[in-house]
């Protein structure tokens, strides 16, 4: 999506948690699960590997956050 070469350190440092696409993008080169297990707790790993929201749901969530209504 970014249109250029991306190092592993970029994907592992996105926002607070690594990118949820890590497994798909890096598993042929890196044992992503082992990497995650050494650095994150179960709850964090579950959040990282959970499926993303549908786009509409994501947008509505962002609207809610932008309006300061996020829990």
């Amino acid at each position, binding site marked *: 999506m970014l*249109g250029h070469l991306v190092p592993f350190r970029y994907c592992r440092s996105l926002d607070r948690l690594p990118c949820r696409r890590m*497994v798909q993008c890096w598993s042929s080169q890196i044992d992503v699960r082992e990497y995650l297990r050494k650095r994150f707790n179960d*709850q964090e790993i579950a959040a990282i590997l959970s499926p993303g929201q549908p786009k*509409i749901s994501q*947008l*509505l969530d962002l609207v809610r956050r*932008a309006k300061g209504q996020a829990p």
Partner: protein
Amino acid sequence: MIKVLLNEDEIPRQWYNLAADLPTPMLPPLGPDGNPVTPDALAPVFPMNLIEQEVSQERWITIPEEVLEILYKWRPSPLCRATSLEKALKTPARIYYKNEGVSPAGSHKPNTAVPQAWYNKQFGIEKLTTETGAGQWGSALSFACALLGLKCKVYMVRISFEQKPFRKLMMQVWGGECVASPSTQTKAGRDILAKDPDTPGSLGIAISEAVEEAVTDASGKTRYSLGSVLNHVMLHQTIIGLEAKKQLAKIGENKVDTVIGCAGGGSNFAGIAFPFVADKINGAQIDIIPVEPSSCPTLTRAPFAYDHGDVAKMTPLLPMHSLGHEFVSPPIHAGGLRYHGMAPLVSQAAVEGLITPRSVDQLHCYESALMWARTEGFIPAPETSHAIAAVVEEAVNAREEGKEKVILFNWSGHGLMDLLGYDAFMSGKLGNYPLPEEELQRSIKSIEGLPKAEARRTGRW
């Protein structure tokens, strides 16, 4: 005959809405609370005239004359026959492509940027915000806003902002305001910068900033715009396939065997394919193939989902590089098809069996792109090269089977802003990174016990 042209008065005057014809109706999208999204809920980000298109079940939606007046600047786009590639492949197949690289922004993206800007203007909106990674969508929207007299603000992921300056400059030439994300201009951006001033940014942060700016504009004159995934975006892109049908009929090609488009968020594939999916629903025999990268499969392989129990049970099975602190993996090329969501309409067409997804690896794509450039001349965008790779496969199959197949595909954009990707390929810096089968199987097993979305299909295809 190399090019088939349509006059302006032959351009399709309505978009085609596949939602009206899907044998299994789409379920309404769900909001964060799990309830179906109402049109009003989308009003802070989109104008109501576009929301109506998003939820429409009408088969045909008229293209406003003022939108056509702008589209005429490059539309109808030429339908070309790839005679030089056919010759190089010694194939009996006839290969046709829609050249969407002729648009001012160099891709299919303006096909929806222009109507989105127009509908926003009709609704009284004065400014559009969006996010962009590589910059293809940001430049298309900047172009559309310039022609319609709207302000345009593009949040571009910082790492791309710094590495890909030319798309940013295109936006600025069209009067768009392109800022590196995270920025200091939104609360979302400031919060991120406070934690990590050197962050390279992400699409997630950029979209947060773009939505926040639209939602918090007290004047109510700002909205957000998205270039893929959503139903109204697919709708606007169908002009590609509708034109192609007219052009093929003009030269007596009454039967298309194969339709191909690359698929990330789904819009350029939908654009060429959905009018032919309609034919297939009505009985036509057509292979319709969305092509995605093998490194990031969305349609061709199982989705990933994990619960806490699965995570706790994870054990490494694959013999891989050791991950010491000094480990540095070679970089991957994060092309435009590594998108985080597929259009629901495309996904449902795949579930129904109306389309047959295929994945291709990165090196095969670049090899095919070079073959294309050295036969047909145009340098394709890396995304487009996925479609070309599948076209080459189909043409070779036709040769081996001795069949005179008709292949149509969407040449979705040029690669003149993506030459660094070509440089990486030609200098041997790229590899193939398919998702390992063991990893796939492990992931499938791990989601066996989880609730799955209902696969709604008629079983006709």
